[in-house]
């Protein structure tokens, strides 16, 4: 019979191999699902993974991949810092919303000024907004020992209500005939997070995501703070002896992830989304959790995972509109990815062995 033996050390090889394996298993099971729906599984998988990259209209989808991946990567990088230290910020979605509101707030307050200071001001406000929203669970945890998972998650719903009231009230477009939603920042040049090079999808958010990847890499590998983060996650007791102050670490990790999520929201509202609307947030803050784990909490891994998830989004939409696959099937497909990743994780910590039943 099949038995599991705990490995003395997590396998480095399997740590690297399990994400691609999870993708492969997802493709197989997902393919079976599509087949059960009466669609050709090979064509469906090809549409999702191949078409956006090398298909007829790749010139349009490749830039879109960056647009979709940028917020995911930016948020996931921030989350990974905390996750490594065992600090669980589940409320990035809320910090993303607040970042967007603060960023857009600066732009809308300045309208119709043409000052070049507006965009830098929005960036600053976006990061600060996300940081401040994340400070609520951080301070509560440090001061009163509350659970940051619950507090940060609940604050997402508070942020959503705030977003709705902003879109209907103070930020509503005065020229919008009474309809909810702010002015469109795409039509307000000083605040528009436009493409840096037309046709590439590269906007400031993409640049910021790449910078965040590099910074996070340096921080984790070359800086004492990164060492403390890793140590706290791997050996909390040893970390205390090494002089790590848990309170400061909590404030730093939640603050950094909040600021990055806020930045992501700000770049999104000033660029691809354009408007503060009631439905502005589409779940990047939650999807980024998948990205962080799929990328093994490693900066380069997150970069790749973000692009992969963006690919499943765009390819999934393509499969919907070309093959009339139901939206729910595509969402299920994405959910499977995390599910199988967690499932195959068993190989990192355990060895599979064949044993005769008589051994029992």
């Amino acid at each position, binding site marked *: 019979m099949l038995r599991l033996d705990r490995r003395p050390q997590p396998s480095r090889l399997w740590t690297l191999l399990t994400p691609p394996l999870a993708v492969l298993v997802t493709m197989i099971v997902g393919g079976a699902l599509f087949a059960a729906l009466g669609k050709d599984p090979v064509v469906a998988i090809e549409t999702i993974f191949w078409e956006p990259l090398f298909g007829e209209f790749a*010139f*349009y989808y490749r830039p879109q991949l960056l647009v979709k991946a940028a917020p995911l990567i930016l948020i996931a990088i921030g989350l990974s810092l905390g996750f490594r230290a065992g600090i669980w910020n589940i409320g990035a979605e809320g910090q993303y919303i607040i970042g967007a509101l603060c960023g857009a707030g600066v732009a809308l307050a300045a309208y119709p000024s043409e000052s070049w200071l507006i965009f830098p001001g929005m960036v600053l406000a976006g990061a600060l907004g996300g940081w401040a929203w994340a400070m609520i669970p951080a301070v509560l945890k440090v001061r009163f020992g509350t659970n940051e998972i619950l507090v940060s998650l609940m604050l997402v719903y508070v942020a959503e209500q705030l977003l*709705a*009231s902003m879109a209907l009230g103070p930020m509503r477009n005065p020229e919008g*005939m009474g309809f909810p939603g702010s002015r469109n920042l795409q039509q307000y040049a000083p605040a528009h997070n436009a493409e840096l090079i*037309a046709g590439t999808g590269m906007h400031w958010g993409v640049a910021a995501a790449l910078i965040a990847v590099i910074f996070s890499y340096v921080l984790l590998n070359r800086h004492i703070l990164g060492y403390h983060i890793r140590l706290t996650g791997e050996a909390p007791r040893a970390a205390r002896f090494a002089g790590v102050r848990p309170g400061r670490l909590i404030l730093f990790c939640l603050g950094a992830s909040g600021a990055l999520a806020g930045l992501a929201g700000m770049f999104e509202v000033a660029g691809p989304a354009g*408007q503060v609307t009631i*439905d502005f947030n589409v779940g990047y803050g939650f999807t980024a959790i998948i990205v962080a784990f799929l990328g093994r909490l490693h900066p380069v891994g997150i970069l790749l995972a973000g692009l992969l998830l963006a690919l499943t989004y765009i390819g999934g939409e393509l499969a919907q509109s*070309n093959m009339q696959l139901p*939206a729910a099937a595509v969402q299920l497909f994405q959910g499977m990815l995390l599910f199988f990743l967690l499932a195959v994780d068993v190989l990192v910590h355990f060895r599979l062995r064949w044993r005769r039943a008589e051994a029992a």
Partner: protein
Amino acid sequence: MTFTRLLTGAALALGMATTAIAEDKTKVGFIYVGPIGDGGYTYEHNQGRLAVEEHFGDKVETVYQESVPEGADAERAITQMALQGADLIFTTSFGFMDATVNTAKKFPKVKFEHATGYKRADNLSTYSARFYEGRSVLGVIAGHMTKTNKIGYIGSYPIPEVIRGINAAYIEAKKVNPDVEFNIIWAYTWFDPAKEADAATALIEQGNDVILQHTDSTAPSAAAKAKGDVITFGQASDMAEYKPEPRVSSIIDNWGPYYIERVQAVMDGTWESTDTWAGIDDGMVVIGEITGPVPDDVKQEALAMRDAIASGEYHPFTGPLNKQDGSEWLKEGETADDATLLGMNFYVEGIKGDIPQ
């Protein structure tokens, strides 16, 4: 700039490619905000799509994408359809407005139709139904049927379309039952069965025995059925599975004839940018069968209201009417103009509570 040109180029190339095959097939795309199985709003748009397929047979090819988020993702979904060679694209929710406008700029050869919006272009039409006419009819039934004199109303978003519906229903309910009171809950969603069920349950527990809804799922009817002694109305679709009660009537959006007409216009090359706002008389708004506990005299009164609106004899917003703050809106015999209705952001006198600002 180059990007736009690139896209336009691609669109032109495709435009030519499709006109080459256009003799046999016109490609029509639909962008839906909810799932086609919502049993309400999106379901009815999809029925319209199926009507197009049935009417034109091999001459059309239809594609759709469901559950498209309103916002940044919508533009990609619409662009995708245009790239894939659609000749005509219907975007069926208000929140797709700016995305449709942007895409229409990039693909001047493709025709676009946006439901319930107000921005138009040479290749972008808008269309909507006068749902409020149906609300007036339901208001008559609701006013007669409530025993507690409390009517619950589940609103989606506080936008003019929804506020218009609340006002229209209230005006008629109040006429037949001066003691009637409206309790409004905003769900901030078009389609979320869990939220809608919560809202309905809360309203029922507060003593509302008639529930009107401007959200798209059948969840409120399911909640009413579970509680008993509460009546509901189908929204956007007949919601016939809850006949004869709790659902006692419905407003049905009937998009098929309009979609067929517009596809025909594209085929004939006579398509022009238009602004359509059709009601009961055009058959775009249909009142579903009045069933169950509704007594015959109430039914006849409701049907008479429907016919009076259809014939133009009666306008749902006829003075004297005051705004909520008591100021005069319409004088005796005066009727509201469309511009005011389209931007309606106030309650009529008698409705309690504030529109979220």
